[in-house]
Structure formats: C-alpha cells, structure tokens
C-alpha cells in the first residue's frame, strides 16, 4: 500500500468514526424525543446524516480509484449542477444547440483536458473559447429576444457548474517541490473538508451566537457565524496540514481563504435563488436540496484555492 492510499484510508475511517458518533447521537435523540419518527428536527437531521454517509463513501471511493475516479465523480457533479442551474435560466428554442453543446461537448472536454493535464487549455477553455463560441451559435439562429440575458445566464452556469467545479480535480495536476504528484488527491480531500467543516461551524455558531445578519432579508448567515466558521476551518486546516505541501501555517491560511471564499459564494447563491424564486435547486440530495445547494461554497472556493496554491507553492 502506498503512503497516499493509507492516508486516504486513515481520513476515511476518521470521517466514518465522526459520522458514526453523529448517527448514534441522532438515534439516541430519536429514541428519546421522537420514537415514532414524528419529530421533524430529528428526522431532518437524520436525513442529512444519511446523505453525508453517501457523500463520504462516494468521495472516498473516488479518491481511492485516483485520477479517473475523481474526474468521473466531479464530471457527474458538474452535470447535475449545470442541469439544476440551466433549468432555471431563461432560454428560447434558438438556444437549443448552444445548450446541447454546453452539456454534451464543453463539459466533457473540460474534464478531458484536466485528465490530460493540459493546463494552458483547461484554464482558458470555458472563459475564452466557450465564451466566444456559444453566443455565435445562438446568434446564428437569429432570435434577438433578451439575447444578452440568455447568453449571459448560460455562460454563468458553465463558469460556476463546470469551470469552477473542475478546479477541484485540477488540483491533481499541480506540482509541488518535495510533494509526490499522487498526493494530489489528498489536496482535494483537504479542500473539500475544510470548506464543508467551515460551513457546518458557520451554521452551528450562527444559530448559537449569531446576531448580525450579513445581508438581512436574503440569507440567515451572520457575521459571527461566518467568522467562527472560518476560524474553525483554519483549525481543521491546521489539523489536516499533513495532507498538504503548505506546512501548518500555510495550511491554516489556505483553509481560511477557501472557507471565506465559500461563505461569500453561498451568499451569491442565496441572491440567485431569490432572483429565481426558489428555495432549493432540486430534490436530488435528500435533506440538503440539490447538488448546487451542497456544492455552492466548494464551487467558489475551488478556483481561489487552486490559483493560490499555484501562485505561492507550486514549483
């Protein structure tokens, strides 16, 4: 067994232990306060824990398989997220071919370029080539009704659901001095864990001590929750520094940057959901809503994390 594999297994069993404690806690609360399964708070909590089990198993499996596993997992997550996003955007029949290209050509190509490690292409493919090509395809159909809104919404969907999401597997392509290339999957585990723990602690502290809403009337997020969440993400980052090439102080700073970016990303998504008049993006992850509900902060964190790693540590 390689060092990377044993580290993944260590993380996996650690996370399973944590989830097991949370599950037992839920079962205890259920036995005590809602034996018939009739306490909505406990049932929501349990549904979420079950979804977490599924996510931990899937991500661990993908990390163990390695590059292909991670590419396939995030490729499908991108597909689901793009579908949720583009379902709610305004489109006309003139956009049909554009959207088909987005789903069936741009998305797979982006992940293919990442798999091949063509960094010069995957960092510009969507922001340059897709950005220019897709509006041409729509324009050729000759329908100018709210044209700018249509092409802008489509491009935004591709940027967030494909380009940003694909920066998670792209972490495997970064090379650091004294850091074996196959440990890239551990960097992914680091990013996903610090962001998700930052979100959880933001939620927890926001409920406990949150007073000052960041955007009243739009999102329940509070400054207190966000600051505590980011601080906790930094502590988790310090504890997981052994996964990264950053060192303890560097891992803390990177975790803080990723978590902070993720918190603000969740606010952006709250504004989009309000604009489109929905609470959840879909029903696909029980207890959490859609893929975009689950991924919103990771999507904002991934490119920032990728480029900061590249800028300060990649050699």
């Amino acid at each position: 067994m390689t060092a990377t594999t044993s580290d993944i297994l260590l993380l996996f069993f650690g996370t399973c232990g944590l989830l097991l404690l949370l599950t037992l806690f839920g079962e205890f609360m259920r036995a005590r306060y809602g034996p018939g399964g009739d306490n909505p708070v406990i049932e929501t909590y349990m549904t979420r824990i079950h979804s977490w089990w599924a996510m931990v198993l899937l991500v661990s499996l993908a990390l163990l398989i390695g590059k292909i596993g991670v590419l396939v997992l995030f490729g499908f997550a991108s597909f689901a997220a793009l579908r949720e996003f583009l379902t709610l955007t305004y489109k006309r029949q003139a956009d049909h071919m554009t959207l088909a290209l987005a789903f069936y050509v741009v998305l797979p190509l982006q992940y293919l370029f990442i798999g091949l490690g063509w960094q010069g292409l995957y960092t510009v493919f969507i922001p340059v080539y897709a950005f220019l090509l897709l509006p041409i395809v729509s324009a050729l159909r000759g329908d100018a009704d709210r044209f700018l809104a249509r092409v802008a919404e489509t491009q935004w969907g591709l940027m967030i659901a494909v380009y940003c999401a694909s920066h998670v597997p792209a972490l495997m392509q970064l090379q650091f001095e004294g850091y074996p290339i196959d440990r890239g999957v551990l960097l992914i585990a680091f990013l996903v864990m610090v962001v998700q723990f930052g979100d959880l602690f933001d939620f927890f502290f926001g409920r406990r001590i949150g007073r000052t809403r960041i955007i009243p009337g739009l999102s329940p997020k509070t400054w207190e929750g966000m600051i505590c969440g980011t601080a906790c993400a930094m502590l988790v980052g310090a504890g997981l520094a052994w996964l990264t090439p950053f060192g303890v102080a560097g891992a803390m700073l990177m975790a803080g940057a990723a978590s902070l970016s993720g918190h603000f990303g969740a606010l952006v998504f709250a504004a989009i959901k309000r604009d489109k008049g929905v609470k959840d993006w879909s029903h696909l992850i029980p207890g959490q809503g859609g893929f975009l509900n689950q991924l919103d902060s990771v999507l904002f964190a991934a490119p920032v994390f990728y480029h900061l790693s590249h800028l300060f540590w990649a050699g």
Partner: protein
Amino acid sequence: MKRLFRPLRRLAANLVGHGIALFARFITAVRADWRGTDPAPRQRVYYANHVSNADMPMIWTVLPPNLRRQVRPVAAADYWLKTPLRAFIGPEVFNCVLVDRRPDKDAATGDPLENILAALGEGSSLILFPEGNRNMTEDPLLPFKAGLFNIAHAYPEVDLVPTWVANLTEVMPKGEVIPLPLMTTVIFGEPVHLRQGEDKDAFLSRAAAALVALKPEDHAP
C-alpha cells in the same frame, strides 16, 4: 412458434420499459408532484398537456409500478404503427390504446372513442392528451377535443386527473433531435368529475382551467 416467443417478447418489453424509465430519470431527473391527489390505485384518466413525444413516457415513468401496470396511454395509431420498432414500443412496452386520428379514413379501426371506452370497460386507467395534437403555440393549451367529455359522460365515477408536464418544451422543442438534460416535473392536480347537467363546453373549459392552474411560473429575466 409464435406462442413460444410471446413470453420472450413480454420479457423484452418489460426490460425496455425499465430502460426507458431509467433513461428518462437520468436525463431529466423527472419526479412526480402529487399536489392534488395521492398515487392511489383507483381507476383514473390522467389528462395532460402535450408539447412533445416525450410527454407520455415522462408520465409513465413517474407513476409507481403498481399504477403503471394498470395504465394505458392513448396514442395515435398512425405514429405508433409506422415502423416495427415503434409497433413494439407503443403497443407492447407502453401497452398503448391505439386510436386513428383520421376519422375520414375507412373505418379500419372504427370510432376512435370505441377503443378508449373498451379499455376503460376493462378497468384500465388511461393517459390521455385531450388537445389531440402537440401544442406548438405560445398558448399553454390548445382547445380540448370532445373525447374527454365523452369519457366523463360514459364513466362519471372515474377520476379525471389533470396532469401538467412541466419544462418539456425546453427539453425537446419541435424540430430538435437532441434532448437537453433539464429537470422536469409531472404535477398531478385534484381530480375533476362531470357535474350534473354540465354541458360539453362548460366541462371542457373547467377541465382545461384545472390543468393550466398547475403550470409553474416562467423564469423570465
């Protein structure tokens, strides 16, 4: 020989049915919203809006298996008998009730309503598109044909369930060949019945209003 193949064909039809349902779920994550009624195993006519050939498979997919076995979509004979593949999928996989849309033609299949009423007489539920044709206009619905009224008149106790298939125009507009993977929802409303002394036009407009009421809002910028 033919008798020997029949169980095999049934098995194949079953498998293809599951395959179609799986494909529909994978592409569009289609789900049911039982807003006005329960998925109860009663005899029903699910009457739906019709914008694409994928409407019927979508409704069929979201029905629970016990309801799916009971339900027979009403579909056009000229479309479903055109090729051997369609003749397998329409009548055998979906167990369609085939009707002839061109009543002026020789009475080979007889009165279109006859087959429909016969299926109801056997206790089947139906999936019916009362507009008769795919709606290619900007209006939410075309005027209903008389069929729904005749059914309500002949079988007043059967639930007529308004069924709105949301978002399919965008998944596959007319003339496009590639379906887009967008999320779709099938919304089931409160059942409608013919009222005492209600005439055809009043009933059809009430049934149409019950269906349009299920339509979600557009997401225009």
